[in-house]
């Protein structure tokens, strides 16, 4: 699916996407959060982008871990510790690996989910990024079981992530800032579920 070189390309694509979608993500965060999701992720991934050239030739574990640590120290909002922990834990799971196949990718997403659950003390159906992450993982796991090719597996994941993000409009947030807004947050799509869906979409584009 992806060697370390491709992983760097993926990270670069994600960084550009976060910059491109910065205003949209912040706009989503306005009615239910503190209007910083896009700005924060934009800043974090800009810092990540600057580190990429120094990561050439490194294994996938090191790349993911560095991305995570950079996000933690530069994002400045909840997405820093959340995505930071996700990338750092995924990096631990991929330590020493130069190549990742689709099974490794499932491990990466599963590890990332566990990291977000632990850091955010959240579960699905609370209108968080987990509502895109978990369905995308389940769809990809199912597609792998059905013997589908990596490209189709990722497509299934992206589709499930976006419908998961859409579903957050029907959920009352019980975690994060949005929990203060309560049921007034109904009808608003969670910014974290949206940024995750964008990320998975970039992974699918670069590897497909």
């Amino acid at each position, binding site marked *: 699916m992806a060697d370390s070189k491709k992983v760097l390309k993926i990270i670069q694509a994600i960084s550009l996407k976060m910059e491109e979608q910065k205003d949209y993500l912040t706009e989503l965060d306005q009615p239910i959060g503190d209007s910083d999701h896009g700005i924060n992720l934009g800043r974090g991934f800009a810092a990540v982008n600057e580190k990429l050239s120094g990561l050439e030739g490194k294994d996938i574990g090191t790349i993911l871990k560095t991305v995570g640590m950079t996000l933690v120290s530069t994002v*400045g909002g909840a997405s820093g510790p959340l995505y930071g922990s996700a990338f750092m834990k995924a990096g631990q799971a991929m330590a020493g690996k130069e190549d990742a196949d689709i099974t490794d990718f499932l491990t990466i997403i599963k590890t990332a989910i566990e990291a977000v659950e632990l850091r955010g003390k959240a579960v699905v159906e609370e209108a968080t990024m987990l509502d895109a992450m978990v369905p995308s993982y389940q769809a990809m796991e199912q597609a792998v079981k059905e013997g589908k090719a990596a490209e189709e597996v990722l497509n299934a994941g992206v589709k499930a992530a976006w419908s998961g993000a859409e579903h957050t409009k029907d959920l009352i947030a019980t975690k994060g800032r949005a929990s203060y807004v309560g049921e007034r947050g109904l009808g608003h799509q969670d910014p974290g579920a949206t940024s995750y869906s964008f990320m998975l979409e970039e992974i699918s584009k670069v590897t497909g």
Partner: protein
Amino acid sequence: MVGLVIVSHSDSLAKSVVELTKIMASNAQIVSAGGLEDGSFGTSFEKIKAAIESVYTDDGVLVLMDMGSAVMTTEMVIEMLEDKKVEMVDCPLVEGAVVASIDAAAGMDFEAIKADLSKVGGTRKF
């Protein structure tokens, strides 16, 4: 003396909380870690880490935070300082800071201050 750190999304809020504690506990070792490096709202891993280190002694450091990323970012800093005696306390920020600074300045130890702070959230204002 137990060190204290106030973490907030707002630099001026964190600084003001520290100032407020000085009225009753001018000797307390208490510092703020509010906002991002450029002064905008948010929580900074580096600022929190530096603040903890600036008041750290073997007596330990207690950290009081506002909400959300303040908690998660502090948690990550503490995980990285794994061999150090640093803990977060879950209590109202202003009242907790006042109680903690008076206790710390009076020489109370880490566990005793934590026990005191655990009661702060349950104390009714009227």
